[in-house]
């Protein structure tokens, strides 16, 4: 694993010398027609996903890899016993029960008795924004200065040296959505990150991922803004609606200008730009909402303004309206068993995820926690067995989706990650046993085919700058 450290240095050097990736050029706003007067700079034009802080991520070097004799939880079909996975150029080249050993498979991992799953995707994390150690100087997750901070972007708070990142990777997590906190009605944009060592957040950003917008229901905003408002749930709703009304007007002004490129540029507004992006469907709405009745009100609001809620987060009472979520095509992302810490969390049940899944809605696990993120397999196990106890016929090949392809879908990345299928990014986790056993560890984690965590080689694993001289032991040994 010495090579890993050297490779890291080389890739970092290369990353900073690299030209902007093609995605930037593709997403540059339309240049104004010559007749439109002075040419505005890109910062003056309002369009969703103009990508002014582009990803500089480059996959770490990898060699062709064959994992054989594994139990594969593919998240794309039934469990494959004694299966193999072939990885080439950072992508999954082949998956199945019978793959020969190709001549170019330099690395061969015999996974007898072991399991392979796709890399875990957690769509609710605050890593980097609320890093460890939890000092006030690094409390960068809630811009709790206004109930509507649609103008802030979570990536501008992310500290890449957060020691929580390597621990998540050691738990098999390869992609995360870092969200602003839930103090505000509208919290700001999310960051979709690969869990990889980097000097900058740009080098962690998932290339081409679309932004999410964090919103929050219920108790948190009304508690934080009790003095100035909103202080009630009806105040919360009025606050969202006022924001959507302003966003709709903004979107209309810019749509008109974009269509003709004539007249003065409308004034750009960061908050309204993000909200207009959500109205256009370019930015996914991720809404923290516990109670069933509140989710139903938000669904009506989405109809009122013509946008879609991509996912309800926490969704402690999703099981009460699982049929409605299924009908609306809204994802519920949940804990296995957090509850009771406030009134809106009182009706938490461990069968929540299973009940939502059984009703035909998309269900996912999430952590919202730097400790829980290291054991999302265990959280899924709790949820799976609770569902079985409730009489639901949940199987391992379904449960694995709760931490892989379903959250990947929530990010709009299900065509690239989240399952073991040819053509997908080779984000893989090798487990030293059944991932739904309490005794099992993630043994190796690959991101885009590159081995970035190896439990058997603790000295070479990713250690953040902060840990040097402070944390003497290796990450997990």
């Amino acid at each position, binding site marked *: 694993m010495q090579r890993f450290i050297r490779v890291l240095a080389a890739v970092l050097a290369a990353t900073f010398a690299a030209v902007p990736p093609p995605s930037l050029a593709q997403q540059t706003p339309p240049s104004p027609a010559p007749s439109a007067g002075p040419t505005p700079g890109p910062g003056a034009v309002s369009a969703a996903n103009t990508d002014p802080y582009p990803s500089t991520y480059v996959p770490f070097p990898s060699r062709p890899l064959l994992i054989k004799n594994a139990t594969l939880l593919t998240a794309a079909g039934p469990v494959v016993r004694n299966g193999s996975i072939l990885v080439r150029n950072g992508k999954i080249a082949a998956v199945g029960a019978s793959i020969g050993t190709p001549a170019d498979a330099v690395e061969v991992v015999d996974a007898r008795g072991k399991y392979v799953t796709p890399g875990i995707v957690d769509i609710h994390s605050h890593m980097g924004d609320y890093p*460890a*150690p*939890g*000092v006030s100087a690094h409390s960068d997750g809630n811009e709790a200065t206004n109930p509507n901070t649609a103008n802030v972007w979570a990536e501008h708070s992310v500290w890449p040296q957060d*020691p*929580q990142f390597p*621990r998540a990777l050691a738990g098999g997590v390869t992609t995360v959505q870092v969200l602003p906190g839930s103090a505000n009605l509208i919290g700001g944009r999310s960051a979709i990150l690969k869990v990889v060592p980097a000097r900058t957040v740009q080098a962690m950003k998932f290339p081409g991922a679309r932004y999410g917008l964090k919103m929050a229901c219920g*108790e948190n905003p009304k*508690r934080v803004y009790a003095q100035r408002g909103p202080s009630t749930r009806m105040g919360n709703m009025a606050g969202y609606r006022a924001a959507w009304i302003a966003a709709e007007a903004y979107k209309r002004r810019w749509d008109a200008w974009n269509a003709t490129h004539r007249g003065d540029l409308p004034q750009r507004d960061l908050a309204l730009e993000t909200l207009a992006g959500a109205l256009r469907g370019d930015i996914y709405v991720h809404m923290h909402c516990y109670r069933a009745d509140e989710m139903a009100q938000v669904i009506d609001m989405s109809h009122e303004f013509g946008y879609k809620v991509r996912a309800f987060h926490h969704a402690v009472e999703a*099981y*009460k*309206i*699982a*049929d409605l979520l299924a009908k609306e095509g809204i994802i519920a992302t949940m804990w296995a*068993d*957090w*509850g*009771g*810490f*406030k*009134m809106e*969390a*009182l*009706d*938490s*049940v*461990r*069968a929540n995820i299973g*009940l939502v899944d059984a*009703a035909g809605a998309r269900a996912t696990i999430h952590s919202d926690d*730097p*400790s829980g993120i*290291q*054991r999302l397999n*265990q959280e899924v*196990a*709790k949820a*799976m*067995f609770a569902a079985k*106890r*409730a*009489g639901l016929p949940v199987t391992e090949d379904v449960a694995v989706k709760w931490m892989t392809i379903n959250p990947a879908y929530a990010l709009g990345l299900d065509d690239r990650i989240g399952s073991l299928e040819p053509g997908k990014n080779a984000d893989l986790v090798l487990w030293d046993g059944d991932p*739904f*056993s*309490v*005794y*099992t*560890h993630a043994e190796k984690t690959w991101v885009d085919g590159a081995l970035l965590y190896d439990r058997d080689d603790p000295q070479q694993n990713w250690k953040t700058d*902060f*840990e040097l001289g*402070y*944390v*003497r*032991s290796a*990450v*997990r*040994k």
Partner: protein
Amino acid sequence: MTMRTMLAAMALASALALPATALARAETVAITGGTVYPVSGPRIPNGTVVIRDGRIAAVGANVAIPVGARRIDARGKIVTPGIINAQTELGLVEVGGERSTRNISGRGIVNADFRPWEGFFSGSAYIASTREDGITTVGIFPTGGLVSGQAAAMDLADGTAAEMVRKAPVGVVATIVTGPRFTSDVDEMTAGDTETAGGGELAQPPASRADALAALRELLEDARFYEWRRARYDSGTLRGLIASRHALEALLDVVKRRQPLIVTADRLDDIDAMVRFARAERIRLVIAGGAEAWKIAPRLAAAHVAVITGAMNNIPETFDRLGQRQDNAALLRRAGVQVALIGNAGGGADEETFNVRNVKYEAGNAVAYGMSHDDALRAVTLGPATILGIADRVGSLAPGKDANLVVWSGDPFEFSTSAEHVFVRGREYRDRSRQDQLIDRYRHLPRTNN
């Protein structure tokens, strides 16, 4: 009655022990054919456990089954003592965010006389949901202040708070971790009022860890000083003391070694300082939290200092816990330290009420990080029972012990396992928890046209 004898009588009355009548209504049960883990002795394949009059009447491979006993066929199953979670907020905090449901803090900086079990909520919805997962006894700990109050052990049986008490007090809880842990609910409510404390009493929380240690030293010193001068105290001719009369009386339990001082300490230096402090003061010490305890595990073992900690913590989440690692508990146990495993090392949110039940998964994770399965089972049964001073009654399966025990469908630490029969004080509990009832209600949708 002098003040002194009255206080002594009060102290006696407050040291609750389980009345024999609490066990009266139980039936005679024979659990046969299971693999029995007595914890106090070796595993018994195909063993039998007989429960009678609320107590364990017999445990072994060749046990006569009393006539008329209800039989539970435990073939292929596992029988263990009821799980004990040593440090929780169960019954003290029902809904974390609702102050009206919080009864976990005393009013000041030194709350040694605060007895939270007297405000325990026997109607908590989490008693049934915790018990049905195989947890039969919990430690309840006060929080806030330099000295938070007294801890107690509660059985998860039906009854009033007083009837649920297994033993109280079981220790006096303090902290030398500065910062938010000093803040109690009451601190926030009465901010600015603390200056009114008179007679030289500690009016402000310690400003730093050495300040906290100095305050603890002075507290024990004043407790000893006060002990022999109660009459002068009552006549108002004694110098000012650092704490109230009741607080000093409670601290005398620590000074007299009747109760351990249970100190939250995470940093190596804090733990080391407390070990030295306990030796100098000749008091019994238990470390709670103990993130970096592994660094001096052999010394803790030699000093008979037990540690209450978790097995899932590996984040350098504060400057006190930079050395936190997941095999902390395993390293401590291997060095011979008495360990109680708890959820989230006492630092966390809902684990302390809603997920008190998850302590068995903490034990499973301890095994995954180097602890033997036997030691992990001990660390959620006999270990905490010993630390809480209740090992004579619960925490193991032996004749004469109170019948707190569980029949599991499999390995108690696995997610796939269910607690199939849960006995507390000899009675089997089968009630559906609030969470079960919610699942029953919403199992089929839509429930109505609405």
